[in-house]
């Protein structure tokens, strides 16, 4: 059946710079914001934008991610005819291999896209935190009669050289793609969100797949090739909050951003809900001695101690006389009595014994606590 737009969500990233957090977990599956996984933001964007045909390309440590997405119910993507479809690298009889690059990942799944005979293909990735209406991007694309539209965000000039910069004419038509330029001419950074006319992209993907010299990457190969052929390519300016949570520090910061008041990624926005698995935990319980300030706490949690400036996922226990501050506690973390936990990220299912002191305030990055860490303590 024909669909106007198919979303292809790249979710295979290893996220190496997230260290322990991505040791057994793809980056898009990393818990975020007290209730979500990083990919929930992109999946919810699709759902809220009316894009109901979404191929999710997984490869690195896909188990938790696959389980999380399931049949796509939380995002209303549980559809027999389309919906969310997990696309893992295919293993043929003679073996299989990972996708060679972002473009190769799409190329390997041409058959998936073709069956919906779409007008457009939206290429997005599952490791950014933002809330965006892709329908507006599509409308921009249609108005400009574009072959490809790339979403951009203004970054501080001093940081521009860390990004892929798009040089555009006044009408936002792109004439050059500058990957991490030493001397940026512009401060419009690509957000890694591409909308293509499928007919056009398909040709470029096939050509790119045949090239021996290509890295099979959108930024490095496909976009430059299209620019070279003078295809109509436009930038689309995005104004809201957008964050790549690439490092432990930026992951921690992006979580803490949620404690700010005026954050445009407003989780409380009823018009643009972020959906995730919801597992029917009971309401959280704060006892007689609880002190909680400037924090987010999820269901099933039981607070007897003090929590400040922190993000607590579901089913957390914080014991009496304990202090948790500037920290992120992943699901099922149990903090014993009399503990102090500062500027730490405590990973899922970790039990912190009574009277433990963890202080990440002196470190460069927040400290990440897993079970091994706790075992070494005792």
């Amino acid at each position, binding site marked *: 059946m024909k669909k106007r737009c198919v979303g292809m969500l790249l979710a295979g990233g290893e996220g190496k710079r997230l260290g322990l957090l991505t040791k057994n977990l793809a980056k898009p599956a990393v818990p975020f*914001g*007290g*209730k979500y996984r990083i990919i929930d933001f992109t999946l919810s964007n699709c759902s809220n934008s009316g894009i109901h045909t979404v191929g999710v390309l997984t490869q690195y440590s896909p188990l938790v991610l696959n389980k999380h997405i399931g049949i796509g*119910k*939380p995002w209303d993507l549980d559809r027999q005819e389309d919906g969310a479809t997990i696309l893992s690298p295919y293993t043929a009889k003679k073996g299989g291999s990972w996708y060679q690059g972002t473009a190769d990942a799409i190329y390997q799944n041409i058959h998936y896209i073709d069956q919906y005979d779409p007008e457009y293909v939206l290429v997005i990735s599952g490791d950014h935190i933002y809330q965006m209406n892709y329908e507006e991007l599509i409308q921009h694309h249609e108005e400009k009669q574009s072959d490809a539209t790339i979403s951009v965000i203004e970054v501080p000039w001093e940081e521009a050289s860390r990004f892929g910069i798009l040089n555009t004419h006044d009408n936002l038509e792109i004439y050059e793609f500058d990957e991490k330029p030493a001397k940026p001419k512009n401060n419009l950074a690509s957000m890694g969100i591409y909308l293509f006319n499928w007919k056009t992209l398909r040709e470029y993907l096939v050509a790119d797949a045949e090239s021996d010299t290509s890295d099979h990457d959108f930024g490095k190969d496909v976009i430059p090739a299209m620019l070279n052929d003078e295809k109509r390519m436009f930038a689309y300016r995005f104004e809201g909050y957008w964050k790549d949570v690439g490092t432990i520090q930026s992951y921690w910061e992006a979580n803490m951003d949620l404690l700010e008041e005026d954050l445009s990624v407003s*989780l*409380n926005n009823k018009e643009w*809900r*972020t*959906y*995730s698995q*919801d*597992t*029917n*935990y*009971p*309401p*959280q*319980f*704060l*006892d*007689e*001695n*609880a*002190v*909680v*300030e*400037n*924090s*987010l*706490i*999820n*269901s099933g949690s039981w607070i007897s101690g003090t*929590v400040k400036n922190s*993000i*607590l*996922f579901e089913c957390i226990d914080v014991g009496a006389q304990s202090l948790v501050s500037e920290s992120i506690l992943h699901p099922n973390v149990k903090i014993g009595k009399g503990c102090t936990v500062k500027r730490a990220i405590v990973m899922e299912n970790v039990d912190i014994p009574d009277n433990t002191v963890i202080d990440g305030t002196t470190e460069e990055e927040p400290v990440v606590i897993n079970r091994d860490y706790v075992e070494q303590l005792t």
Partner: protein
Amino acid sequence: MRRLMGLINLEHEHDFLEELTYFRCGAATPFAGRYRLIDFTLSNMVKTEIEEVAVFTNKKYRSLMDHVGTGSDWELARRHGGLFILPPDWNDPTDISRGDLRHFHNNRDYFNRSKADHVLISGSQFLANTNYEEMFNHHVKSGADVTLLTVHLDDELPEHKSQLRVTADNGRVTQLTNDQNNKEAFTNVYIIKKDVLMDLVDECIAFHKDHFFFHGIKENLDKLHVESYQYNGYAMFVNSIESFFRHNMKLLSPDAYRRLFFDNSYVRTKISNEPPVKYRETADVKNSLLANGCVIDGDVSGSVLFRGVKVQKGATVKNSIIMQRCTIEEGVHLENVILDKDVKISGGQTFIGSSEKPFIVAKRKVI
């Protein structure tokens, strides 16, 4: 568990919850921060792996339909079986059935279509978090026609007055009475053989009866093999404002909270995608239950807050039940209050009720 089907029979449940049930049936009343009364029974059935559940509704069932939706949040959105809300919609002028027999008569198809041999029937006012597997095993093993679930009452509370008391001889029920000295109370949950059910329904209709349990079972105790099976976990009856308020408040004791919610797997309810609770700088929350989506700047103690409640700076909420999406503005003081959903209390006001007679505000009021 394909041998057991479920029925939640609301026909004879009165809407005893005053303002809270002006526009909704009792079964749809919010409870314990994120649930509705019916969630407990429904979840218990799902935990028993029952795959077909019908709900006989009487009136004011719209919010109930809205709450359960397709049943998908209970994994009951099925192509075969699943959840059926069955509102009264009778069109047969020759139909002589009355009371809940009308439901049984007009929904005969639901029972005939199923492959199940036994039917678990329940109301919505007995709340527990359990599964009925053991009870069902007992029912099958004893070869009973009917097995009644009972609880032993440790203390006599006002809400127990209306519960039938069960006298059993070696497990076999001999009498159902109103004798308040008998501490073995019927929970309105029972399992019955499907063919016995269908026969009794026919008999009741033929004799112009109007209450299946009273006329079909209670009056036939001598003819039927009726077993009794006791439930020992945390449980309560909610059938008045007073019991509603008290049992919400009781969950603020750590022991009750743990026993109700953690002794068995979680009670399912409608998913609402609210974000985690946000406690701001000035929040001071003690001894309370809070559901997701709340944003707290003020003082909250001894209270149950449902999803999406906002308590602004300098507001105080004490010993109160605040339902979905209420807003408590600056400087408001509430004590022993029940706010139904979507109520807004504007700045500076004080409302104080008593625990016996809480101050109730109906939904969507702006005060």
